[in-house]
């Protein structure tokens, strides 16, 4: 959800600010975890989470002190962005719910959903690494905002979707499947961003979501 939101912000020149992304991620994760843990997953519970999440996040936006210069950077803090956050949250929840709980969907659609979720998670973690690295090195939030680029991020997402789809469709052995995707992520990252440290960090950011997904769905 957070990565879909970030892609929209990159496309519309709205700042992808690491502090707000971290707050958004924490609150969304907490709401989703508590609702699923205490009540379960389903249409009503999903609706509750996807509406409550953006509202709580909007409350944070209203009451917190701004840390970025609003004259230079545009942020997603206006009321209308609640609906965007609800939409991207609903898309992610729906796709994940369908691929994990619906037994009647076809294999191709299930794999396509898995590829979408996994690629967005991998790119999201990789972007978080890049934003955090820039923040730690420069200690300048205005430089961090400029760390991500829409074209390269989109290129990375679509390449990963294709690779994950092909791997999940043709490779049956789970270890081989995960290793192939990790290796492909490293190479893709190196090819797109030309940063060896960043590309090696994808060993972790690519394998972790896959192992978690495997653990959850087996």
């Amino acid at each position: 959800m957070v990565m879909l939101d970030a892609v929209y912000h990159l496309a519309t020149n709205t700042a992808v600010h690491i502090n707000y992304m971290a707050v958004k991620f924490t609150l969304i994760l907490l709401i989703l975890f508590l609702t699923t843990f205490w009540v379960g997953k389903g249409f009503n519970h999903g609706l509750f989470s996807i509406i409550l999440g953006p509202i709580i996040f909007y409350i944070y936006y209203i009451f917190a002190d701004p840390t970025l210069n609003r004259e230079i950077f545009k942020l997603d803090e206006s009321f209308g962005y609640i609906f965007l956050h609800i939409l991207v949250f609903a898309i992610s929840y729906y796709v994940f719910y369908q691929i994990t709980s619906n037994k009647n969907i076809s294999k191709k659609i299930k794999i396509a959903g898995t590829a979408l979720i996994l690629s967005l998670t991998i790119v999201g973690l990789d972007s978080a690494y890049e934003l955090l690295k820039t923040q730690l090195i420069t200690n300048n939030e205005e430089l961090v905002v400029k760390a991500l680029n829409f074209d390269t991020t989109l290129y990375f997402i679509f390449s990963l979707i294709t690779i994950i789809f092909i791997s999940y469709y043709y490779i049956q052995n789970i270890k081989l499947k995960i290793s192939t995707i990790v290796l492909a992520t490293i190479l893709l990252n190196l090819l797109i961003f030309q940063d060896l440290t960043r590309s090696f960090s994808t060993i972790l950011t690519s394998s972790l979501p896959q192992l978690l997904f495997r653990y959850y769905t087996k």
Partner: protein
Amino acid sequence: MKNKFLISSIVFSIIGIIYTFLPYKLLTKTLNLGFNLRHNDHIMIGTIALTIAVTSIYTYLNRKDNSN
């Protein structure tokens, strides 16, 4: 078990309201609940508490509906 969610929703609502909506000076100088944290940290604590409170009340209502 249901009452635990009701109690937690009340407790976390109070914490959430105090940390999210009260002015920074009132929280730090008058109530001494600042813990040397920044204003944005207080808001973060408050929104987390509000999240737990609202989810607790939802869980409480959900379980109450199921038991009826």
